[in-house]
């Protein structure tokens, strides 16, 4: 597919995406109605606002197996998104990184609140809206990994997710 054709299709796909996930604004005047939609490609690049929304939606569909299968790398510097082993996108935007961290924290919290400890109780107390703090999750993960038989403590997060996924 040529670049021009690819971009025409990308623009159409982005328009459909925006219809589904974008924040639509409609203005009603007396004789006309104006709907506001972004210019999807600006200066030969995807509009920054659309790009941010796209990444946000992509990450909101994140499942733990994507982290385990190394499609998503999370570090303190940012997030790297891979596809079939090829690095596609790197994010250092703090807001997006934070949102992803919250997502992971909340997923882990949800899982750990269901797991029973050896000495009774669960690793974290179940919370409304899965609103767990990073400290709570870190503590729970440490306990969970101590109780688990196999783990490589070099990467606590990945080990924990792997264990949680495998135990499902």
């Amino acid at each position: 597919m040529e670049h021009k054709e690819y971009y025409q299709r990308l623009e159409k796909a982005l328009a459909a995406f925006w219809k589904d996930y974008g924040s639509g604004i409609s203005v009603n005047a007396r004789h006309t109605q104006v709907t506001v939609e972004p210019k999807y490609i600006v200066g030969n690049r995807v509009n920054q606002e659309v790009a941010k929304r796209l990444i946000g939606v992509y990450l909101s569909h994140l499942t733990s197996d994507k982290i385990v299968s190394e499609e998503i790398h999370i570090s303190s510097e940012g997030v790297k998104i891979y596809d079939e082993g090829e690095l596609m996108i790197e994010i250092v935007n703090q807001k997006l990184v934070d949102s992803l961290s919250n997502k992971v924290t909340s997923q882990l919290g949800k899982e750990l609140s269901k797991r029973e400890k050896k000495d009774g109780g669960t690793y974290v107390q179940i919370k409304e809206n899965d609103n767990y703090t990073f400290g709570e999750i870190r503590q729970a993960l440490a306990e969970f990994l101590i109780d688990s038989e196999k783990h490589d403590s070099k990467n606590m997060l990945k080990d924990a997710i792997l264990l949680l996924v495998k135990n499902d």
Partner: protein
Amino acid sequence: MGPTTASTTEISIQDLTSRVRELKESHRFPQGTIQTLLSEHLKNFVASTKVDLNILDIIDPIGKMFGCRPFVDHVIKTNNMFLAKTFTKALGDPTFISEEVHPKSYENASRRKRDTNAEQIRITMDLRKPKYTAVPVRSQPEPAEANPVMASKPQASGVVATTGITVHSDSAWGRMLSKIPKKDGGTYEGYFRSGNGA
């Protein structure tokens, strides 16, 4: 009314006001002509540079004379750069502006100013980086313009410094879209399949 901050704005507002008054007093004005003139004035001085616009300064002449309710109400209501840009562009479409005089609009502006306890209501517009377009849905569509994006080879990859997002592959966005579920089922992958443009 508060003072304007940019001399270009001040001049343009004065020009605008006196020109409109002149036309109004001469009783030679079809409503649409004046509104188009207003649109052009607004577009020109906003597009010329980054101007710190005082919204009340704009709506004072317009609000008093014609209303322009959608512009006045919405921009003031949102006090939002994004919408201001949108509306400024939308003003290029004369059908966008209400033709009916609506004295309420000026009252609304004053009320907003009073309610927010603001000395002035300001919106900064920077059209050097236009991001949004307004699409009239019930008026005649404009003829499609040659798309400069398509004229040259697209450059999808590269660092977008302001967003902190680096794209490493030209096909990254397409591949990412292909993995997102559509609200009505399926994925956006269909858009990228050969022989399928929709």
